[in-house]
């Protein structure tokens, strides 16, 4: 665990740096994939950047709206450059909406665009795992095993390491499959199914799960839902969907 790197007078948050590095590498991967699928790399990069910027602005806006009473007396604080006052759910909603509007405006084909995003997303999730390892977040359940890690004062499942390994495996499968002559939409749905399956499996080793009805873990239930949707989606798309044309 290394949440902060101290360089001289600066304290750099390593988890955030890893997320930024992951985003950058995902965008590089996207450039290559766009070229192979006759999509404009610039347009896809703009799609991500617009989604990201609107997402961040939306996350702040959502936070401010939820705390309007506080911000009414401190209007300038709305623009403060700090990552503490963000509402992630709202950010995701705003970011996706902006990306959708931009994609429609640019007449981007839905499934080939999503397929082009899949390998980059796979790589990004590896860095999310590394970021969790650096911050100590997404920690494992207490257990004493030869491979346990001591995190937050207790021996625990190294859930972050499991997460990185699973993400690497998903990325490897997507990377190996991306050149195969499959129907449009296969790659993104395979990515969703594999990621959901790994979440269902690995959540069992987490020590910070949100618990719902009868001790069930909410992320596992969400993972099962995504898994089911992905399987149904693959079947429906496979019926009448043309194959993807790839440039080697």
């Amino acid at each position, binding site marked *: 665990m290394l*949440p*902060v790197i*101290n360089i001289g007078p600066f*304290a750099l*948050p390593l988890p955030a740096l890893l997320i930024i590095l992951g985003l950058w590498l995902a965008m590089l991967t996207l450039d290559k994939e766009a070229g192979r699928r006759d999509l404009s790399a610039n347009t896809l990069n703009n799609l991500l950047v617009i989604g990201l910027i609107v997402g961040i602005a939306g996350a702040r806006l959502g*936070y401010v709206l*939820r*705390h309007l*009473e*506080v*911000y009414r007396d*401190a209007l300038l*604080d*709305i623009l*403060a450059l*700090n990552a*503490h*006052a963000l509402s992630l759910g709202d950010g995701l909603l705003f970011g996706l909406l902006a990306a959708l509007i931009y994609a429609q405006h640019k007449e981007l084909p839905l499934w080939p665009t999503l397929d082009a995003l899949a390998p980059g997303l796979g790589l990004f999730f590896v860095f999310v795992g590394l970021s969790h390892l650096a911050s*100590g977040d997404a*920690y494992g*359940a*207490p257990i004493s095993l030869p491979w346990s890690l001591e995190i*937050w*004062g*207790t021996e625990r499942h190294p859930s972050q390491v499991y997460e990185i390994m699973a993400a690497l495996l998903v990325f490897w499968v997507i990377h190996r499959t991306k050149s*195969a*002559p*499959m*129907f449009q939409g296969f790659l993104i749905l395979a990515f969703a199914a594999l990621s959901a*399956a790994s979440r*269902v*499996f690995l*959540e*069992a080793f987490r*020590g*910070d*799960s949100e*618990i719902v009805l*009868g*001790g*069930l*873990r909410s992320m*596992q*239930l969400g*993972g*099962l839902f995504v*898994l*089911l949707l992905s*399987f*149904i989606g*693959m*079947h429906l798309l*496979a*019926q009448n969907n043309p194959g993807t044309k790839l440039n080697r």
Partner: protein
Amino acid sequence: MQRMISLIRDRKSWMAITAVVISLGIAWTAASRILDAEMSSEKIASPQVGFLAPDFHLDTIDAGTVTLSALRGRIVVVNLWASWCPPCRAEMPTFQAVYEDFGEQGLVVLAVNMTYQDSAAEALSFAAKLGLTFPIALDRNGEIAESYRMRALPTTFFIDERGIIRRVLVGGPLNEATIRSIVKDLIEDSS
């Protein structure tokens, strides 16, 4: 790959595969339910969101003492600071303002001075100059820096009425709206 496509297209085969995978997922989800309340992070003391805030007993600059666990039932903001740290100094008036506004609703601001790398006299002089009225505790031997795994100054922990850490903000200076919004959420959640 053609075999795979045929498999996905074939309704019966794909339904069977889906049913097997989802059934396995449901079985695994049911088997990994959490039934043991002692597994909860809220029972373990650690300086991390969702964990019990590590307890401490420290001297204060006004010759008193303070024990964190004795403040159970109130919202506590623990701010680790030093008088030589510019962002720490910059955010102190903000904590004072928030303390004045929310003190009656049960908020306690507890500024823990890193005295082992500062000095009690400097802390006292700084507090007097700014007219700080909340308790300022002295970490003379670095025990809090160690138990709260302090990596950068300032670091602020927002602790709910059950003693559970709800937010950890590393760095500063924090703006007033951020502190107020978090404190208000905690007060609302506790009532």
